[in-house]
């Protein structure tokens, strides 16, 4: 019995020290804070054989909007982030949603008119189908951003401009301005 106890204690001690053994491993590099998208606008890339330096032209109006957007970055946090800032509000919203669903159930149950129940069931079914259809077809959302940028190399070769959507993102550091253009390659995974 005593021997078993000692062996178990030694095993536990060994496992416990294994945790500290990781102390020798270099600390992982802190992941940089993700950038925050503050504004969505459009961008047009135009090749020009006459200029010698790349030029970024921003209209006065767009600049004003960017200024406003960066000044109100707190208002641009996502809805989830805003809700999560206040536990009280989340709890209250949840409680009232619970009450709403409960009372809707009571109303459905006490509704004696069969025709009314059928109409409600039909309406719920239609709403569900519409919701599902919306999820499937992504409502009337336009094509993804990379669709517009796919023709950029071809257009540049032809000397034509390309226009597409652009998110203005504020990132940490001092690397100037970087333009990331979405490009989907048709190569198979692992193929270079």
């Amino acid at each position: 019995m005593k021997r078993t106890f000692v062996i178990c204690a030694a095993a536990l001690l060994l496992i416990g020290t294994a945790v500290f053994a990781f102390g020798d491993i270099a600390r992982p590099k802190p992941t940089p804070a993700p950038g925050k998208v503050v504004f969505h606008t459009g961008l047009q890339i135009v090749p020009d054989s006459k200029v010698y330096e790349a030029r970024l032209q921003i209209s006065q109006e767009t600049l004003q909007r960017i200024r406003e957007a960066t000044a109100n970055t707190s208002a641009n946090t996502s809805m989830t982030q805003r809700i999560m800032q206040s536990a009280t509000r989340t709890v209250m919203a949840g409680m009232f949603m619970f009450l709403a669903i409960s009372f809707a159930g009571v109303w459905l149950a006490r509704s004696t008119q069969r025709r009314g129940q059928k109409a409600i069931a039909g309406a719920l079914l239609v709403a569900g189908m519409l919701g599902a259809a919306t999820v499937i077809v992504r409502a009337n959302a336009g094509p993804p951003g990379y669709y517009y940028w796919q023709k950029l190399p071809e257009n540049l070769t032809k000397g034509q401009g390309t226009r597409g959507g652009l998110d203005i993102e504020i990132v940490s550091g001092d690397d100037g301005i970087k333009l990331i253009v979405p490009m989907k390659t048709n190569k198979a995974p692992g193929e270079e």
Partner: protein
Amino acid sequence: MERAANISLAAWPRTRSSDRARLSTRLAVRLFAVILVVSAGVSAALASWLPLQVSILTVFLFAGPHNWFELRYFLMRLPARFGRSRNFFAVAFAGIFLLTAAYLAMPALYYANLWSGSNWPDAMATWNTLLLLWLGALVMMRSSQSSRRDWFWTLPIVFMLCAVNWLQPQLFSLAIVYIHPLVALWFLDRHLRRTRPEWLRTYHRCLMLLPLLIAGILWQLSRTSSLADDNGLFWRITQHAGADLLPNVSSHMLVSLHLFLEMLHYAVWIIALPLIGTTGALWNVRTIPLARRRGGFPKLIAAVLVFGLFVVGLLWFGFSVNYAAMRDIYFAVAIAHVLAEAPFLLRMI
């Protein structure tokens, strides 16, 4: 034969007079439609063209008088004896008083440095919840007054609105600012249904123009640059329309849309409802049931109306002296008339 001749002779003038009446009704309906369409179109054009200037002028001229007309209307709609509606009116008046007091207390406590305003969204959400629960209680009480009405279905909606309010209290308050002007159109609908049913179809057709005008304003102004709110007054107007809460939306569009709805609201209360005779003869106190009934209060009602006129004059004076401050005070106090519309509209349904 003689009898037949008599009948036709007697019916002839009656037929002619009924034709004349039908013709005059048709003309009146057409005139009504033209007035509605032209008023809405001109309001939309002015609101889109010069939103800040027209907003200042509109509030200055019509804010006070429209409140006086509403007061006159509410007195007119107040029953001579409450009877079975006693509890309904007790809850209605208590709600109007307490909710108004709470609404005014929030900025008052803030400016008196008694409250930091740090949990302003929570305070707004609480007030909005109380408002919704009060409305729910009124709906249930009204529903219980008649066995034909089963409005239990409104309760889940009220609770769902409470939940949405707690998720976005400030946007919910902004929604009230935009929805309130439309309530006047509902009042007009209910009165036309009672007093001019032959006008109702035309009115509904004209109402279909409203979403088109709103869509036109949104489409036309959504890409315009925001208004220059570089002075205190312009800043207040853009804030009232929600420019702070919707920073990526053109404040020009927001102010124009809000102003357009406000202009419709004022037009209904000051022109449309008195024209169809819902307020009775303006200066005749005897058209008000509380003054007309035996043992009524004609002097008190007259005093209330005269005092109302005095307040309108005071409001004009205040606007002339310090428009910006008076505008703030007016829109804070005006919550009382927003609340008062609810029970009287419910009585009409």
